[in-house]
């Protein structure tokens, strides 16, 4: 155990360090800071996301997993992934919704307590993407449950996801202030 800690503390350069080299990270932080602000305003500082894989190619999942790695670290902006839709504020649906997953998706939607937002992530979730027209799918999430926002890309990169999340939060904010 101590060797592990020793290694962690002695070799910081093996992981990309935020401060000295990467401009990307600075961008991420900048976007993140804005997101954090919005999250604080709209979700009282805590946005819980439940991922629903409605028959995706797992490409989008890879990117989402990257969101919580050491580089992007979405957790610092108050965003975290949860194990049950009942704990969630946001359903992040990936995949074009296969026939097998239709009921599951509806159930997940119903199990999420209000106020909730549904976000379709990736081109195939928006309209079926490259699978559009296949007999096995429903051509996008919006045909099964009401979708509030969409994030395009096949798959979108983590940074894109973060930027889009910011836009989504901004849109919600605008809507709420209007009301």
């Amino acid at each position: 155990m101590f060797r592990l800690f020793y290694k962690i503390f002695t070799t910081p350069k093996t992981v990309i360090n935020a401060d000295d080299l990467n401009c990307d990270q600075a961008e991420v932080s900048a976007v993140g800071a804005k997101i954090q602000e919005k999250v604080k305003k709209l979700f009282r500082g805590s946005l819980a996301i439940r991922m629903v894989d409605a028959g995706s190619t797992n490409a989008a999942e890879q990117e989402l997993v990257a969101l919580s790695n050491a580089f992007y670290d979405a957790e610092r902006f108050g965003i975290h992934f949860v194990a049950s839709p009942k704990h969630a504020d946001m359903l992040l649906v990936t995949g074009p919704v296969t026939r097998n997953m239709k009921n599951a998706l509806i159930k997940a939607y119903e199990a999420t307590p209000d106020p909730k937002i549904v976000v379709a992530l990736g081109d195939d979730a928006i309209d079926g993407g490259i699978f559009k027209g296949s007999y096995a799918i429903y051509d996008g999430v919006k045909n099964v449950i009401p979708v509030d926002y969409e994030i395009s890309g096949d798959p979108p990169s983590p940074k894109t996801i973060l930027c889009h999340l910011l836009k989504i939060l901004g849109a919600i904010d605008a809507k709420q202030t209007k009301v």
Partner: protein
Amino acid sequence: MENIILWTIQILLLPALSPLCVGIIRKIKARFQNRQGASVFQPYNDLWKLFHKDEVISADASWIFRFAPFAIFGATMAVSAGIPIFASFLSNNFTSDILVVIYILAIGTFFLALAGLDVGGAFGGFGASREMTVSSLAEGGLLFSLLVLSIVSGTTNLFSISGTIDSLPLASLLPVGLAFLGFFIAMLAETARFPFDNPSTHLELTMIHEAMIIEYSGKRLALIEWASANKLLIFITLGSSLFFPMGIAHSIGLIAIAAAILIFLLKVLVFCIVIAIIESGIAKLRLFRLPDLLLFSFILSIIAIGLII
């Protein structure tokens, strides 16, 4: 008058601090993973948000499911009045017995397990089964490690223990040390930390506590999360005030009490760091390896008792 103020502080300190404690542990763990991690106040945000969300309750659930969060939270609050936090002179002969504290916490476990069973999902059932397995075996180490202290100090009242253990003879250092080790293992088991449970898991293979609360949402989820944070802090407090009572206030006095609270916070911080280091350093154990560890804690405490009686 002073007593009323002190009691109010005593009772409110625990639930007020407990989310921070969770936040600190998460923060330290994130740093170990080379992440920045959420702010230490994130758990407060989570709770506050959950209190303002609607709820979805399963149609299969009975009143047990609705009632359980109150019982679980209530149990931790009832205990918080019975454990020494910063002052050993706040004597409470009514509910501050070792056994009372352990059994009141057992009420929480009982209802949590029932709530897990109540909705009839697959998760809740095995969560309850695992929780009862771990907690029934952890009770031995917990009780006996605290019993070591009460035999050393000649009382089972927790406040009195924290008041007398300062002036221990050097000879009882070894048994108390062993007992602390036993207590620490039992504590990790009772508060659902590594290597017994993974507090941030999303996988059913490694779930115990998380599996039972998977059906909760909204304010009831908030109560349960808060209660489990309370439970963590209760155990940390037991560990710090009973095994390391240095600095605890023995008499009324503004400076003494302020210093005691500061030292208490410091001790809690140390405990949080230790827990976070352990969680970052070791993997979760397989379920069938857990009894070995729990029995190890039990046996350590028995050896400690053997050394002093």
